[in-house]
């Protein structure tokens, strides 16, 4: 590796765009060790040399307020980066240079990229990058990150920064900061290098800002009487507001003679007058998401067709293998584990592809920020961002799509919490089963059942938000929205498609593992290894029937419940087979591949299942784990096996608790 480059910049400055343009498909998304923050790393080749690049988590400053900021700081100060690429938005230079001002004083080489050059030009702004470079002492370039051909200047600036180990000239900032009472004294008390890689100026400013990490570290390095003096000056320093003032004053000074612009006027465009309207905002957002959902199916269709075709190959392949004399065990493994898994996975990938494309587009264009604005108040009650409303709505169609849609949520904890809550939303498959079962048993009362399910969903989400929210979104970190509403951007199709394809490929590998594993386990538990005997799952079901009776489920219903956590559509098929004394295994396998339900299902159900049992069963399968693909998508998005397992276990137990409650209420009624 020749060098490691870290991308630093405020949200919407174009970090991810640059990251994607540099790395293409050579990227990896994971989690920072021990932290709940997404880690994006990749590599690229330039002039035959390999470089590593890290997309640092988004934040507006470098003060240690959140995991995101701490990780960024740690990454930079530990020397993991050879050079830091600081990004700013040319169309809003005054504000977006703040990150650069906050970085100034860190002794790690850097260069500055003034991104969105095209937007600034459209606004009639002229920026003299060379003049800024002379003032700052580090390479400064203008860039339109979305135009792939224009990266020559980027590489040139990067190499110059690495070679010259260029550091920001902080004398102007120093003058401004020293206007703060006691700042000069502070710089003497905390000399350069008190903490490695940081200058006295940077540490003094952070001390005034009450930066927790800096203060803790200083306590370990400085003498107690020095600390006392430092604390005295800090207390009177005016906090981040006064250092912020100095930084903006410095930025204004830097931009004098560098930036020429016309007076800008704000007017809300048509689209914003609708999205931001107190009356029409919510309907407009909901409609946008619903159209997005429908739009997601269009690119998904070819994949889905292919997936179903693979499912359809099962029978002919099984037959061919059988006549070739292959053993039955092997045939079922090939057909019912491998082919079945890939049939699921492909159909799912199609949908992931569609959702990521359509909602990635909405994000890219700037609509997602408006969604955040409109639903900020409602979602804040659950500890979430306004954007979380989107995955919830998608989940009425498909939970896996909802999970994929959480990609636009930039805070990991809120992302996991959103997925955990989205599982409680009954998906399309559930909606195809519930009304049928409900009207069979309760006639017109089915409407009441559906209302009860919707109310339970709301309650479930509320309780789940309480339980999971405490860990995932700590109350101390629940700050209200302070966010930029970026101007609308034209979508950049090339970059978007490459990103979406990359994500789909990534999803494919990760998800395949999970789906294959679960399908294999299910197969092993439900296969009769000794002909004529019951499979393990079958035996266990019968043995624990006294327990499952408490939940309101005899063993047949309980087996169907288990099957519903792999796929909801399968539950009915399993029921009809089991009450007909059919083989559980073939019932499961057929049902999951979409085979029709026995014609006499209605009579079978009515003669074997009581009303309270039926009601309990409806609730149990509705609020159970949605399906194996949703499980896999959750793992893919959270990048955490631990949280995926937690959510799955929580929903399994939760469904049984609900079913018990509903069953006993049912017993009181009937």
């Amino acid at each position, binding site marked *: 590796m020749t060098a490691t480059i870290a991308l630093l910049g405020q949200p919407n400055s174009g970090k991810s765009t640059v990251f994607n343009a540099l790395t293409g498909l050579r990227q990896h998304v994971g989690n920072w060790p021990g932290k709940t923050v997404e880690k994006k790393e990749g590599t690229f080749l330039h002039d035959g040399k390999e470089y590593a690049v890290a997309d640092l988590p988004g934040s507006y400053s470098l003060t240690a307020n959140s995991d995101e900021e701490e990780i960024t700081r740690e990454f930079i100060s530990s020397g993991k980066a050879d050079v830091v690429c600081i990004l700013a938005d040319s169309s809003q230079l005054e504000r977006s240079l703040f990150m650069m001002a906050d970085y100034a004083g860190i002794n790690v080489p850097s260069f500055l990229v003034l991104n969105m050059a095209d937007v600034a030009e459209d606004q009639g702004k002229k920026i003299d990058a060379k003049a800024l470079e002379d003032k700052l002492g580090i390479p400064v370039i203008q860039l339109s990150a979305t135009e792939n051909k224009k990266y020559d200047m980027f590489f040139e600036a990067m190499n110059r920064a690495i070679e010259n180990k260029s550091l920001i000239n902080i004398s102007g900032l120093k003058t401004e900061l020293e206007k703060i009472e006691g700042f000069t004294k502070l710089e003497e008390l905390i000399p350069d290098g008190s903490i490695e890689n940081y200058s006295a100026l940077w540490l003094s400013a952070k001390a005034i800002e009450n930066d927790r990490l800096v203060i803790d570290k200083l306590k370990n390095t400085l003498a107690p009487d020095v600390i006392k003096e430092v604390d005295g000056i800090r207390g009177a320093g005016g906090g981040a507001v006064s250092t*912020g003032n100095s930084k903006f004053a410095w930025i204004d000074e830097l931009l004098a003679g560098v930036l020429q612009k016309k007076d800008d006027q704000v007017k809300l465009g048509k689209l914003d007058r609708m999205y931001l309207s107190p009356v029409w905002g919510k309907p407009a957002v909901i409609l946008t998401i619903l159209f997005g959902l429908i739009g997601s199916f269009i690119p998904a269709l070819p994949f889905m067709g292919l997936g179903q075709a693979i499912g359809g190959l099962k029978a002919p392949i099984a037959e061919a293998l059988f006549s070739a004399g292959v053993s039955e065990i092997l045939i079922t493994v090939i057909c019912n584990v491998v082919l079945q898994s890939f049939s699921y996975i492909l159909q799912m990938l199609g949908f992931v592809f569609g959702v990521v494309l359509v909602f990635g587009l909405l994000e890219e264009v700037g609509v997602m920020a408006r969604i955040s604005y409109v639903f*900020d108040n409602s979602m804040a009650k659950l500890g979430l961002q306004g954007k979380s409303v989107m995955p919830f709505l998608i989940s009425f169609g498909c939970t896996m799509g909802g999970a994929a849609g959480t990609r636009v949520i930039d805070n990991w904890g809120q992302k996991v919490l959103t997925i955990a809550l989205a599982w409680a939303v009954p998906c399309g498959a559930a909606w195809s089963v519930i009304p049928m079962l409900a009207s069979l048993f309760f006639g017109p009362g089915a409407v009441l059942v559906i209302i009860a399910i919707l109310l339970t969903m709301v309650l479930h989400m509320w309780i789940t938000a309480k339980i999971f929210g405490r860990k995932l979104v700590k109350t101390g970190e629940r700050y209200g*929205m302070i966010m930029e509403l970026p101007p609308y951007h034209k979508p950049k199709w090339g970059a978007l498609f490459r990103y979406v394809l990359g994500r789909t490929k990534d999803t494919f590998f990760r998800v395949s593992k999970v789906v294959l594993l679960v399908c294999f386990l299910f197969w092993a538990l439900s296969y009769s290894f000794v002909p004529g005997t019951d499979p393990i799952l079958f035996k266990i079901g019968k043995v624990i029937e006294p327990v499952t009776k408490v939940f309101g489920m005899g063993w047949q219903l309980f087996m169907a419940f288990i099957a519903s956590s792999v796929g909801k559509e399968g539950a009915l098929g399993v029921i009809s087979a089991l009450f007909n004394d059919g083989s559980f295994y073939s019932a499961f396998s057929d049902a999951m591949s979409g085979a029709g339900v026995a014609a006499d299902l209605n009579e079978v159900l009515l003669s074997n299942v009581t009303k309270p049992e039926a009601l309990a069963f409806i609730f149990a399968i509705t609020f159970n784990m949605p399906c194996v693909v949703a499980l896999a998508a959750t793992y893919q998005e959270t990048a955490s096996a631990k949280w995926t397992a937690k959510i799955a276990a929580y929903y399994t137990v939760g469904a049984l608790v609900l079913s018990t409650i509903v069953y006993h209420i049912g017993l009181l009624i009937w």
Partner: protein
Amino acid sequence: MSLSEAKANGEVRVSRISGDARFQSRITSIGITPGCALRVIRNDRNRPVLVYSRNTMIALNRKECSGIEVEVLS
């Protein structure tokens, strides 16, 4: 008065920012500092307050706005 009471379409100047260290650093880093002028774009009940400053449209949660004192310019 607090920013959350400011009228839409008016121009205000920030006179004081108060709150814990974290709030201070968040609000400063998005570009709102004492002395800077804000144009209030929208101020609707149950929605964040929308202001325009330093070339940027910014949405601010109503509760957070209580820490931002402003004086009316126009």
